[in-house]
């Protein structure tokens, strides 16, 4: 197995607060890894550092043997890292299919001039993008709602739509930020299968989740952080019995 993503001494400060404190961990290609920790531990900040939304103060992010810490977000996406957001950030006033087409964007070429003159290449590309988008919708089970406005979908389906949009960027690595947030048990169970299916397509998964049943069932490896620092790493069984993790959760989080 090869290492796809590797965080080295990653550190981010907001004013006096150290949100992420010298975090190190590796993600193997083809794995499903969970990043867990109490609320406010800095999990989402780690994601934002990987995807270039924030710039690290120290340390480095290595993706596929290349440092990506200074790249803009859209470049990182085109290198093959896609993400979803903790607070759903869909394009609410646009149709589901268009949301997924946003993901196709970085795999397309044609610009404004090609659009105005509707070149054969442009038309072929549009057709292919639409096919990809429909396939991704089908993958998450939303094909029948392709022309609905994103804001009219149920909460769970909005989360799935975000996943479809991320998949449409044809990533090698996908970051899911609380994908089961707001889902019922049935939806969560289906989501676990979807996550496995994503991995089966050869896409490495890194996720944040509070729903422990999902984490334990889906993830093969867990990284635990508290107050910005990594406190444990290992397979789910080992983490469950780790005293430091138990203390962190019982001490600060009611869940």
């Amino acid at each position, binding site marked *: 197995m090869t290492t796809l993503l590797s965080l080295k001494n990653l550190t981010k400060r907001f004013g006096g607060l150290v949100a992420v404190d010298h975090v190190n961990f590796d993600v193997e290609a083809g794995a499903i890894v969970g990043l867990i920790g109490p609320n406010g531990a800095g999990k989402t900040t780690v994601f934002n550092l990987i*995807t270039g*939304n924030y710039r690290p103060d120290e340390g480095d992010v290595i993706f596929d043997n290349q440092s990506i810490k200074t790249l*803009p*977000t*859209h470049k990182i*996406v*085109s290198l093959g890292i*896609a*993400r979803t*957001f903790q607070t759903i*950030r*869909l*394009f*609410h*006033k*646009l*149709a589901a*299919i*268009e949301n997924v*087409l*946003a*993901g196709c*964007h*970085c795999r*397309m070429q*044609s*610009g*404004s001039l*090609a*659009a*105005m*003159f*509707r070149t054969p290449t*442009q038309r072929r*590309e*549009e*057709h292919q*993008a*639409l*096919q990809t988008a*429909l396939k991704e919708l089908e993958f998450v089970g939303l*094909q029948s709602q*392709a*022309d609905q*406005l994103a804001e009219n979908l149920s909460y769970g389906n909005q989360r799935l739509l975000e996943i479809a*949009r*991320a998949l449409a*960027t044809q990533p090698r690595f996908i970051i899911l930020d609380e994908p089961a947030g707001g889902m019922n048990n049935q939806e969560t169970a289906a989501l676990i299968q979807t996550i496995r299916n994503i991995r089966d397509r050869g896409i490495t998964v890194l996720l944040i989740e509070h729903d422990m049943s999902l984490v334990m069932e889906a993830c093969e490896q867990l990284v635990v952080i508290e107050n910005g620092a990594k406190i444990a790493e290992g397979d789910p069984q080992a983490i469950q019995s780790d005293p430091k993790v138990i203390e962190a959760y019982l001490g600060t989080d009611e869940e």
Partner: protein
Amino acid sequence: MKDKRLVIYAVISVVLLLSPLFLNAYWVDVLNNVGLYTILALSLNIILGHAGLFHMGHAAFYALGAYTTAIINTTYHIPILWLLPVSGLVAGLAALVVARPIIHLRGDYLLIVTIGFVEIVRIALVNNVFGITGGSNGIFGINRPILFGWKINKPWEFFYLIWGFAAVTIFLFNRLENSRFGRALNFLREDDVAAEGSGINTAHYKLIAFVIGAFWAGMVGNIFAAKMTIIAPESFNFWESVVLFMIVLLGGRGSIRGVILGAFLVLGLPEIFRQFATARMLIFGAFMVAMMIFRTEGILPPLPRKYPIAKMLGREGSA
């Protein structure tokens, strides 16, 4: 439903096309102004309507185009219509240079910077910058355009030039809207963090939106200069930018048909209200408020884009 709409569009187009036959020169000229502002507002619509950038300085690009045409035409006597792309290019380049450092400003901060830009341009024109703008006198003696040997002179001749240009603009911009480019602008308007996170280079698209909008405004400036044969800084003041801003918002952000209707209303109503003499602008102001209250998202907001989803699902894999 769709057919009915097409019929309405067709009827309106035909009526418009034939209107110079039954309208007098004055009303034809009103329609010429509506046409010019339709094109200008469509170009602003790319920036303001589709990309959602608060841009209240569009008259600056329009002015750059008009002055480019006027200066080159009066000094080197190059025919007007050859200068059409040149005017667009100058305005587009200006947009590239000006927009780059300010593109990251949010909402109202961008608004005031664009207002500042249009004012700086106007003041520079008034002060006869580089000695080529003629100061507040402006530039006069601009030639009339000649198209395939036909000298365009009378209002009805300009009517077909302007609305021909408008038709081309509508055609091209409609394609632009329904493309990867148009969608990208909408994505960054709705949520630029999510757009960037979906792999869209938002800064680049904002800039290109400015450049395309400015390019078109510059070309309209060219036609305006040829139509007026004299241009002066007062034709490009901040108020003109406000008028364009109102057209886009009143008609419906991001909606081509809305913007066209907006241009008809914002330019046409003050003419229709001429019978009220000095009260005409008062009534117009009240009308603006009323129309906005009754149609809060603009009179004709954009329709959702259509994708051949059903068709593709029907015979998937055959393409």
